[in-house]
């Protein structure tokens, strides 16, 4: 039997087996996010049976306002997590942001607007510093952001040793404003979603995800890791500053220690929503779901009139359940598709 060279293989758009495989991988890839959605639905249902008027605009406004600070912080954290890093310094930035707002916001709206923009830029600049330290000195993100968290927290304490300060009335009014029954926070939520839908399809968004997925490949493909780090951490700092600004519209004071309470929940919200801690996988919509899950738990604890100390317990358990579920889904995927 002679060995003739077979003709060159035809290009394949889709092989038969691919369809079935693609459907099941789609499901498994989305499993963590879908599980989070399920959990949120269950929590809302429970909440709905315990309280009147849960499915109303008013409730939506309230809950979104309660979740928004965490949401903003978690947005920045999501971007950094997708890059494969972590940003612990947002805690310090949030504290510093509220402190600066409380002490620097003068009287006139113009001055306040200017100060607010400055604070946002400061957040971005500090994030860029984080990125610089990580890239140029090749230090681990965990350590660098831990150190900058300390520096930022310390600075906040030096400026304002205890909770205090005053924020102008019109600034507070923004927090409670509403248009056609829809509050400013819901408006912000919509903006946030739009931002994400746009950002993830930009080249920068794709490059950030690629760097988190496999930094070496991204490098070989010409990505400037330095630029990605600067921008990812810069954005995280920016969103932390925005979170601080929003927080002040709700609390009306500056607090040098408040930021600590947002660091780990920002990571938890993202992880519950399906972001992989290794980088490269997941999206903001999941983070939004995760942030709402954590917020609703707080509501439930309050409504059930149990000790508020149940909140961290339930949050911790849900976090574990979410991660276990996605880990199991991943493992079963590996078994059936390897």
């Amino acid at each position: 039997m002679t060995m003739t060279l077979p003709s060159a293989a035809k290009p394949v758009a889709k092989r038969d087996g691919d369809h079935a495989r693609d459907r099941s991988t789609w499901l498994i890839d989305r499993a963590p996010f879908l599980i989070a959605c399920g959990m949120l639905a269950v929590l809302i249902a429970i909440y709905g049976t315990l309280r009147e008027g849960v499915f109303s605009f008013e409730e939506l406004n309230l809950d979104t306002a309660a979740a928004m600070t965490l949401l903003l912080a978690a947005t920045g954290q999501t971007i950094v997590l997708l890059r494969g890093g972590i940003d612990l310094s947002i805690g310090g930035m949030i504290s510093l942001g509220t402190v600066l707002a409380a002490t620097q916001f003068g009287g006139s709206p113009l001055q306040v607007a200017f100060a607010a923009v400055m604070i946002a830029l400061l957040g971005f600049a500090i994030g860029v510093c984080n990125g610089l330290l990580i890239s140029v000195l090749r230090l681990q993100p965990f350590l660098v952001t831990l150190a900058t968290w300390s520096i930022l927290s310390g600075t906040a304490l030096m400026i304002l040793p205890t909770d205090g300060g005053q924020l102008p009335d019109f600034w507070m009014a923004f927090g409670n404003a509403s248009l056609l029954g829809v509050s400013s926070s819901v408006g912000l939520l919509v903006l946030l979603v739009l931002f994400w839908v746009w950002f993830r399809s930009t080249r920068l968004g794709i490059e950030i995800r690629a760097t988190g997925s496999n930094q070496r490949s991204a490098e070989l493909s010409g990505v400037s890791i330095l630029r990605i780090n600067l921008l990812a951490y810069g954005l995280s700092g920016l969103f932390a500053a925005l979170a601080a600004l929003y927080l002040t519209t709700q609390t009306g004071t500056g607090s040098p220690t408040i930021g600590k309470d947002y660091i780990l929940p920002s990571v938890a919200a993202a992880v519950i929503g399906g972001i992989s801690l290794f980088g490269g996988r997941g999206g903001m919509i999941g983070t939004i779901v995760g942030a709402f899950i954590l917020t609703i738990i707080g509501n439930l604890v309050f409504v059930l009139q149990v000790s508020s100390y149940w909140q961290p317990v339930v949050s911790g358990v849900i976090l574990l359940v979410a991660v276990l579920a996605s880990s199991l889904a991943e493992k079963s995927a590996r078994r059936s598709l390897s």
Partner: protein
Amino acid sequence: MNALLARHRAVLLAYLGMIVLLLLTSFVSQGFLSGSHLRTMAVLSAFIGIVALGQTFVIIGGGIDLSVPWVLNCAAVLVTLMANGADGPLIYAIPIALAGGALVGALNGFGIALFGVPPIIMTLAVNVILQGGILIYTGGAPTASAPPLIQFLAVGRIGPLPVVVLIWAALAVAATLLLSRTAFGRYLYAQGTSATVAEFSGVPTLRITVLAYTLSGFTAAAAGVLLTGYTAQAYLGMGDPYLFTSIAAVAIGGASILGGSGSYIGTIAGALVLTILTGLLPALNLSNGALLVVYGVVILVTVSLASDAVSDFFAVIARSFGRRDNAQS
């Protein structure tokens, strides 16, 4: 000799930094190097050092333990509640508290190794669950005071040396031996370098992970028990400062946060550096905030100096000097 220096560069830098700090602060404030002050600092270092012992093992193994604050706190509360101010019950109260810490650690280890939960998430979740749990149990109220024996362990002395420092020294010797001279240590470093290669090489990865986290839970609980003697009672939130300081001590001591390298000797230097810095507070009239800033800067500086980027930089400079010499000769 050069190779030896290179390998232990980070640790040597940490100790060098510590000595420099000590000298600087002694200039700034009188009585800083007095016997009693040194003793106080040794005692404070011991607490950090004991918590950081477990953290060292966990970090070398490639993980991290974010549950130390509330393991510490729970052990403190448990032991004081069970003893209720008397020494007698301590005979079972202390072992129970320590075993509880170890158990929580083992739980962490199993969650991470068996179920694949990332260490940050697992230990974070356990931490908040313990926090909520103990707060619910105690209703948020302060608990009984610490029995005399524990107070002796924390602030008492044998001869010129504080008891707790002796305990720390004994633990330090054990830790160093474990890391450098035992199979467990060898496996731990391998696993921290690459968990995959360790698997392929037949390393008992599950066992190693569980042991490392169990040890961390144990030392956090031990620190909690001892700490109640120092503060004379358990209070809620007493463990919080030890998360940052335990990680910082390990990092300043030269271990890579990713795992696979480092030593407890380095962590000791880290604990000492942090304590000396805290001592600067009253000496320099620094506020709490300023101290935090200093902490952050110190971490950045020490980790940078020990980093590859900086050593490469110095190597380039050294080489350029060498070339200049060659050109002239």
